């Protein structure tokens, strides 16, 4: 069943067309990889879903979350979807967590806002979440600040924050790009596991085809604001039909599995 359906999404900023009609379909329990070079519009697609595009961006098309169109939604209602039903993990956890707010604060504030939990309930849920993303010693971690954690730990915390209100859709924008290679695998495995366990629909934005081949179920390839190829991972990565996909694959060092 399709949870989030993007159809004919067009975005222009200052008269420049960034997205030229993107179609994507996210399903529960599936990781949908979105690949493409820088500037192809991958990140913009992710931001458009949550209405986080830069000021002055004009959009058309439809982003359907169930029956509702996120693009046509009033700002106030969209704010209940953000963090509630659709959550996002950003590229660099060093900058996407507020350096002066404790982990517990950043984990609980939107829970209290969206779910109406009191302090105690939110804290209990936060501890549970930290355990779920495999932060050692959640009791001690919750009162610490982002700078006291390593990069991989920070991204796990960011994922815990995204999961806090039990969203149905998770948009992960290059979640491993800023991490050490040794740490990347752990974070990817975590994402995959959460997707399977919680039945999340994940949109994994990445330029890294290696990452893609490791976790994605479906793969879409973007170029210049258009999706040029979509299909199951095996088919797209092994037997690409579009010349651009082939070029991307050939640019990899060695062979992809």
């Amino acid at each position, binding site marked *: 069943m399709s949870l989030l359906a993007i159809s004919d999404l067009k975005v222009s900023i200052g008269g420049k067309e960034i997205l030229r009609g993107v179609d994507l379909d996210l399903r529960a329990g599936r990781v949908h990889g979105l690949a493409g070079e820088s500037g192809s519009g991958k990140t913009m697609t992710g931001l458009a879903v*949550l209405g986080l595009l830069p000021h002055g961006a004009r959009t058309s098309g439809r982003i359907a979350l169930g029956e509702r169109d996120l693009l046509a939604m009033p700002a106030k209602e969209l704010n209940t*979807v953000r963090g509630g039903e659709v959550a996002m993990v950003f590229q660099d956890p060093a900058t996407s967590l507020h350096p002066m707010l404790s982990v517990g604060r950043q984990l609980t504030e939107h829970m209290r*806002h969206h779910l109406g939990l009191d302090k105690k309930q939110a804290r209990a849920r936060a501890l549970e979440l930290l355990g779920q993303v495999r932060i050692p010693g959640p009791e001690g971690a919750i009162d610490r600040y982002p700078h006291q954690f390593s990069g991989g730990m920070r991204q796990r915390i960011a994922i815990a924050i995204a999961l806090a209100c039990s969203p149905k859709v998770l948009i992960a924008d290059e979640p491993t790009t800023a991490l050490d290679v040794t740490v990347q695998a752990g974070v990817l495995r975590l994402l995959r596991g959460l997707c399977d366990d919680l039945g999340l629909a994940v949109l994994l934005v990445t330029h890294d085809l290696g990452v893609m081949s490791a976790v994605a179920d479906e793969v879409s390839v973007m170029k210049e604001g258009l999706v040029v190829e979509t299909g199951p991972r095996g088919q797209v990565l092994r037997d690409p039909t579009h010349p651009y996909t082939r070029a991307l694959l050939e640019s990899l060092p060695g062979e992809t599995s």
Partner: protein
Amino acid sequence: MSPTSSSEDLKGDTARRKPGRSGSRSPLIRFLARRVLTALLLAVGITLVTFVLTNLVPGDPVSANLGQRALGDPAIVAQWRAEHGLDKPLPQQYLMHLQGVVQGDLGTSQQSHRPVMDDLAESVPATLELAGAAILISLVAGVAFGVVAALRRDRLTDHLLRVLSLIGISVPTFWLALMAFYVFFYRLQVTPGSGRIDPTMSPPPQVTGLYTIDSALAGQWDVFASAVGHLITPALVLALYTIGLLTRFTRSAVLEVLGQDYVRAARAKGLPGRVILFRYVLRSALVPIITVAGLAFGSLLSGTVLVEAIFAWPGVGQYAYKSATTLDLPAVMGVGLVVGGVYLVINLIVDVLYGVIDPRVRLQ
């Protein structure tokens, strides 16, 4: 998923820190203790600097204080020098001075023939009241204007505030003080004249030395009204420069923070705009703002000398001017000490605020 799958990035954190919550409180106290200790050392430095600078002044306090006939009599001169400890070598004089300072004795003013401490006890609160009111006004107005300008970037409000803050920064304080006095007191007669309260009233019983607070504490509301009325014009005049400065700095600080990833992440969490502004944006922006506010307080203190002169405000500025022109060395040293001390306290406050606002400062 096996628990060892991500052991690489689990290790880094646990190895570095002890678990448990006990570590969260004591670092702040350690941080505070370190700052206070530094401040104390600097205070000793200030006494040394004021002492040396004052004694370097090419002027002889003897000739400034004794009459012509007394100056002709070497015995009287020697006696006067001995009385004031001027016959001892400088290092010893400094130690005597330091000993006095520790005991709260700043010597006797050669001009007023009263202990410098008593003179300062009268003039310092007056200046603190004026400068404190000015910095309060500039913080509230400057930060509010700056935030509004940033949120309304490139719109009419932003442009208007830009013009206003530029005016505030460029208009000389003494000219503004004269104009305010002339227009509001002499022409329009909407503000009371010079001094700290109406001359027919007697000052409230001294607790803090700040008339506004003391009169409120004593419940003398007519005196309170008069004190506030007298305070508001010079404080506004003094504040205008800092308001302009803080507006500009707050605007750019807020704009910079608004572009940060964590603000976008906060939006992605669906937090209401006001929570994002106060919890996420202002907290970060406060760090550069308090830095500038601390520096601005310094410029504000030097501005008081002129404003005090024009509004006949009996503060440190007037006292410093008088004692400097009469080579009243104990008084000059006393003023130097007080002004240095105020800077020290302001810097200490700014440092402590950094630690309170930013956990990265206190949890090194």
